[in-house]
């Protein structure tokens, strides 16, 4: 009985961990005008973000082709998988889950079980890693799904948005509904929980935004998993880690995970955004 895990690049599983647990990452597309790139394959994240400001049109992202998922499911089956667990970013926020679902129906493969993480970026990625570890430890698919269903509700992503410009340009969501379709400079703190994005707080300056975000994250301590995420802002992410105080203390011996955010999400948040992905150790109320 071999369970293999498939995910998409928007879940932000770090490449070395994906390699270690043999997780298959299907890249999403990035479209710039007429050109289309496979994220992380045809354009690196670094290159993408460095060129972001100079793209003639604001980039959009698109789900991988159905055929790509089909190919991967079939490849894993040929390599000996008896079960495939395909985990993706929130169904409510992206077409990727549905693409994978259609691929699963038509694939000539071992049974594929779809799982909606109801998260994005490393919020989804942390759940993928928990599943991969459980699979490696020999748990059954049913056990893994029970575990995941319980942990989804304890997972949160927090992100401090550096500039509203990207949000406005990306035009993905009606940001006015969060009261941040504003003419003023605002640093909103977005929270993603159970597939819903909300503006958890709105403040005017970066310093206050960081301190407020740290308070919000602290409310979910202690953590089973905690990571720092950023949109092409490694330095700011490391600073955030320095400011995190004892938030990471509950994670025995683990070195902090600092991970860049996928362009699929980063184009909306804008370069300079930093935040956290967390799985609380406390059962949700």
């Amino acid at each position: 009985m071999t369970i293999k895990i498939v995910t998409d690049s928007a879940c932000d599983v770090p490449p070395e961990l994906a390699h270690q647990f043999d997780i298959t990452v299907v890249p999403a597309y990035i479209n710039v005008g007429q050109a289309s790139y496979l994220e992380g394959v045809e354009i690196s994240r670094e290159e993408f973000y460095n060129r972001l400001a100079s793209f003639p049109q604001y980039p959009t992202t698109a789900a991988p082709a159905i055929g790509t998922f089909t190919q991967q499911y079939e490849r894993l089956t040929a390599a000996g998988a008896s079960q495939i667990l395909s985990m993706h970013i929130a169904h409510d926020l992206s077409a990727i889950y549905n693409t994978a679902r259609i691929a699963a129906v038509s694939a000539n493969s071992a049974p594929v079980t779809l799982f909606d993480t109801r998260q994005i970026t490393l919020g989804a990625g942390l759940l993928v890693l928990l599943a991969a570890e459980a699979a490696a430890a020999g748990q059954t698919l049913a056990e893994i799904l029970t575990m995941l269903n319980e942990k989804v509700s304890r997972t949160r992503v927090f992100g401090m948005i550096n500039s509203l410009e990207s949000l406005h340009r990306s035009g993905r969501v009606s940001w006015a509904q969060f009261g941040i379709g504003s003419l003023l400079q605002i640093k909103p703190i977005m929270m993603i929980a159970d597939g819903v994005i909300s503006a958890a707080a709105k403040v005017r300056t970066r310093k206050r935004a960081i301190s407020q975000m740290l308070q919000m994250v602290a409310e979910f301590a202690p953590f089973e998993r905690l990571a720092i995420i950023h949109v092409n802002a490694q330095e700011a992410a490391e600073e955030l880690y320095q400011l995190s105080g004892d938030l990471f203390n509950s994670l025995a011996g683990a070195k902090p995970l600092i991970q860049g955010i996928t362009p699929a999400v980063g184009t909306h948040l804008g370069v300079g955004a930093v935040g956290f992905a967390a799985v609380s150790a406390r059962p949700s109320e």
Partner: protein
Amino acid sequence: MTQTHLPEATQTAPPPKWLQCNGRQLQKIAYAALTWLEQNHQHVNSLNVFPVPDGDTGTNMLLTMKSAYGRVQNSQEEHVGKVAEQLAHGALMGARGNSGVILSQIWRGLAKGLKGKETFDAADLAHALQTAADTAYSGVMKPVEGTILTVIREGASEAADAAKKSRDLRFLLERVLERSRQALERTPDQLAILKQAGVVDSGGQGLVYILEGMLNYVYGKMNELMLTAVPSSNHVATNRPMSAQELAMPDGGSIENPYDVQFILMGENLNVTEVRNRIDAMGDSTVVVGDETTIKVHIHVKDPGVPLSYGISLGQITDVVVENMQMQMEEIVQQPTVPVATAVPLIKPTVQPGQVGVVAVAAGEGLAEIFRSMGASYVVSGGQTNNPSIEELFQAIQDVPTDKVVILPNNKNIILAAEAARDLSPKHVAVVPTKTAPQGLSAMLALNPDGELDETVAAMVEASKQVSTGEITRATRSVTLDGVSVNEGEFIGLVDGRLCTAGPKLAGVLTAVLAAMAMEDRELLSLYYGQDISEEEAGELAEQIEAQYEDIEIELLPGGQPYYFYILGAE
């Protein structure tokens, strides 16, 4: 009290004793008070403590009196209790500014004291003046002596004494006026800030003018006043006698369309432009505003059934008002003093029923736009010299399509009116007492439309304290205040309401204001430039500040506010 204090007229031609006042007489007394205040309101305006073009007390009290008189100007009512009630109602709806609100409370107290009286005598008036003083005090959360409150309190106490000595109403009013003048003269001894500024309390002065005006009537100066008084307001209600024909056409409408129809249309995917075009074709004086879910309609038509049926074909209609203006012409009922255009929403409401909506007051289209962009449901135009009335604020609250409403007055002289509007409304209304636009914008950040009203209000109050406000304007008078010496016409800078600097050059004043705001410890400076400043000028100034404070982010926005060249918010 000696005879020498009495006006000349009494000495040359002492009138006969006046023992009873009826409704018609009270109406004329109110008119005399209004007219005298109108002639003197600029003097009241000039008594503002701060040398800034802030909250013009005289104008506010005048508009409040106009609104009061507007309710009775064409009345034939003889019953004095009823006339007082109408005056009080008009004052309450038209009250603006702190002194205007207190004046409306005085009228309310008088009306309470005169309730049920066909006519009043000296004892009745003394009693009513005491009720008026008590009501005025209870209308203020923290009553301060040395203000209009002191003047009405002392006046009322003198009235009680006078009523014991004589049944003559003229005698009573003279005594009240004299004591009120004395109380007014003492206000600088009670309020240090008045002494510093070398003025008496402006609201108290306004009240003294009102009392003087009342005595003018008593002295029979009415005919002379009628000839000299020229109303300056363009409001519907003025002290100019209106013909019945004019009254029937308050919005320039025609008697061809005698029915005034108002309603709110609620539906889905409503097309405002189409509704406006269709409604427009039905009559005249059309106002159609709103969004795809809620539209407010006002029109004059021949047949009220036509617009109502049209409304019902598109969704649900509520708050229906149909008035027969022809009948009104015959009954000579006064229209509200507020022009229709200010009572309708300036933007489309984005709030849904059940959510928390915000009514914000803003001076300047730029600031109004910023409040809207942050989710304010309604922006009431008004500010420094243009304080909205209780009725305008009340209308805005009522027009927000939810029953949970937060008001942001954004000016210290509008807070009281906002609280009065809150008390009038059957909705759940809270006032977040913001004194400046930056405070109001900070409060907007904490708005959680889906939260509980109490919680979101607490968060908004807290957020409003996170910002320091600087204001740069021109001195309207010379004064020395808080150790700052100001010459009329100079630039002056205020930080969080305190005068902190003055000078002949804008740049120098700005530098001092920035220092007083502790800019070196700040992260962000928002610069809202006023209607008299060009974008280039503001841009150059922003560059200079940037050069001086390298670590600070500067945000430049067109505020469009009058009088204030710059409003600064620092965080």
